[in-house]
């Protein structure tokens, strides 16, 4: 099992969700986060002059999937979240040691 964490633009959530649904991936956790990448935030205007906002709002998707599905999930996210402009986000993949379903107590691959 793998866990995919994707930090994406807020406005790309729908597109990513639809892309994942076409591959039968429905489960995900979405969190509102703020962060910054290479561009180090943006500048906004005060009454006179500007101030910098270092951390921009983004969404973080967390998806746990079977090893075999990992590539297609990552690919779908990459395609659907892309606008080509700075600030599109990042995708991270990490191994999952164990998984449990709280309702039934079952464990292992079938939980995902």
């Amino acid at each position, binding site marked *: 099992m793998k866990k995919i964490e994707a930090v994406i633009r807020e406005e790309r959530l729908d597109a990513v969700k639809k892309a994942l649904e076409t591959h039968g991936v429905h489960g995900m956790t979405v969190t509102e986060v703020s962060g910054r990448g290479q561009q180090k935030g943006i500048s906004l*205007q005060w*009454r*006179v*002059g500007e101030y910098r906002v270092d951390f921009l709002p983004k969404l973080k998707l967390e998806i746990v999937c079977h090893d075999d599905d990992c590539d297609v999930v990552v690919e779908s996210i990459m395609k659907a979240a892309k606008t080509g402009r700075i600030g599109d986000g990042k995708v991270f993949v990490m191994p999952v040691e164990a998984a449990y379903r709280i309702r039934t107590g079952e464990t292992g691959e079938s939980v995902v």
Partner: protein
Amino acid sequence: MNAGDTGWILVSTALVMLMTPGVALFYGGMVRKKSVISTLMMNFAMLGVVGLLWVFYAYSLSFGPDIGGLIGDLKYAFLNSVTGDPSGTYATTVPHLAFMMFQGMFAIITVALITGAVVERIKFGALMIFAVAWLTLIYTPVAHWVWGADGWLLKFGALDFAGGIVVHINAGLSALALVLVLGARRGFKHEPMEPSSIPMVMIGAALLWFGWFGFNAGSALSSGSLASSAFVATNSAGAAAATTWMLLAWNQRRPTLLGIATGAVAGLAAVTPGAGFIPPIYGVVIGAVVAVVCYYAMIAKMKLGIDDSLDVMAVHGVGGILGVLAVGIFASTTINAAGANGLLFGGGFTLLGKQLVGTLAVGAFAFGGTWVIAKVIDATIGLRVKEMEEVVGLDLSQHGERAYGGIR
């Protein structure tokens, strides 16, 4: 007694009351999320504290029978002799009670204005003590000098229709003194201090603009042509200043809502002393000029590194000074026979000189007096919250409330 005048003054009183929560929202939207409640509270609390002290003794010190041109006596304390009949001295066509309450709303908003300079780090208890001391020692004498029967500035001939000297110069210079004693916020100039809600700033500015009709047109103390003239001058100045500020920001980068709201307030503040003395079209000139001057005053303030957080000095102080001096230029006795002619209408430099004296006298008194009050409070109970309280934010540390919901 005149029913139309009485009705207008009662409505104007209610309009001016709405300006204090207006200031609260105007300020509250500009501070960080962790300080919204505390900023709103600093303003709203004045409706309570100052509103109470006003009927106890502050009205009497401001408008009571004169002592040496400097202060009123305590004849009207606890509303003694303030009845439904006209006072015989002030606003002779409306009940004395209505005039007293109208003036009370001015005192409330003036104290509230000062808070914008010291948000996000002043101890709430210290601010309340400051409010009581400042109202008693600074506001009441200044109001008496300028508006009280036989006040020395009134007799001298300085004109202040609706509070350019009493409200805006007084609040602006006092705010500056208080900031110099209190010091800047932690992280000032280093951390981004993002406004919590610019829409809230606009609601506040809109309420101020709305209330300002009562503030300025109500100061005619009657419902006739003078009130109408002041009303038009007021709106014209607000509109001109808002538009000018919008263009300035646009020229720099983009037209901002925060800027246009600020411009409107600066224009309204600047036209206040002259609203009932100048031909209303000159409100446009005052508005356009003050927007440019206040805009650059803010830039200058940033360079000086003074954390007058929400620009009380740059908007109300500078705007008020400019407006008070503009009376010396644009005032005309054809608009208000009780006034005088300014430079433009054949009055020469006489009125301008008197306006300058009023500005300097009140500015110096407000700055010096407030500095002393602030130093005394700082040396006794302390003006500033503890470092950790400031980091956490004044909403939680001073009030145990937060503006926006929790985890759900």
